[in-house]
């Protein structure tokens, strides 16, 4: 009887999820409840918060650009993994391929840098 090596991963996932679900659902039952309307308000402090999240809350587009950059480099990293694992078999040809690939993405990276897309402010 062999066990697929993925079964323990799923097992730990289920165990962790059960623990988390149990503790999330048991806490409201055992904890005290003292009603106070002020408690239910969202946390605020100082002056009126500038971006109001309910309704028209909008955020700097920088976050979008960061996520886009992340996707590009994530895909590049993903391609580097199988390349790195089979590097010894690929030899010089594989090296040249990857140099071309990285250089092309690097051009885009340099362009973004030049445009100031990597500056946070």
């Amino acid at each position: 009887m062999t066990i697929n090596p993925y079964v323990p991963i799923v097992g730990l996932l289920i165990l962790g999820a059960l623990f988390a679900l149990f503790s999330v659902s048991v806490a409201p039952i055992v904890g005290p409840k003292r009603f106070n309307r002020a408690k239910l308000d969202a946390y605020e402090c100082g002056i009126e918060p500038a971006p109001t999240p309910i309704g028209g809350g909008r955020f700097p587009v920088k976050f979008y650009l960061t996520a886009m950059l992340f996707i590009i480099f994530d895909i590049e990293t993903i391609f580097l993994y199988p390349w790195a694992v089979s590097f010894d078999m690929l030899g010089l040809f594989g090296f040249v391929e990857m140099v071309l690939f990285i250089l092309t993405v690097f051009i885009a990276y340099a362009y973004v840098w030049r445009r100031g897309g990597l500056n946070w402010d």
Partner: protein
Amino acid sequence: MTVADVLLLALGAVAVGAGVLVVTSAHLVRSGLYLVVSLGAMAGLYLVLGAELVAWVQILVYVGAVVVLLLFAVMLTRAPIGPSTDLDRPALPAVLIGGGAGLGLAALFADAFRWTFYAMPEPGTAERVGEQIFGGWVLPFEVLSILLLSALVGAIVLSRPDIGARAAATATEHERGA
């Protein structure tokens, strides 16, 4: 039916069900979450079929990056808590087109393969995928780098028209004013 068949059916049902919920839910962020479930179930399908590397890449890229970008985009523009009532979606044509395309493809596949059985190929290990991509599929791989380049350039040109060479004059104007 083997365990693999049961798993395939169950994961397929989860993927399709979550996919339906993505388009029917009126909560924008929850739609994104259903998309995560759907893509995760597809990663499970790959895993059952023995394509380990592809399965985890699916999770890393689609779940870990693309849906995060979607969530960011939703939050950048609007992410109301509670259902969005202004989503204008004609239900009937969508059901017709979606259901028709899905059933048609299913029928096509069923007809193409009938009851032919194929032996499962060797598991798709990283070494095999690496050899295939960098040995046999070099051109698509290199073309992909051009795609990534254009995606990145497009992202910055579209999302940040306020910065860069053309807008440099206005930017300095702003800085002076601040």
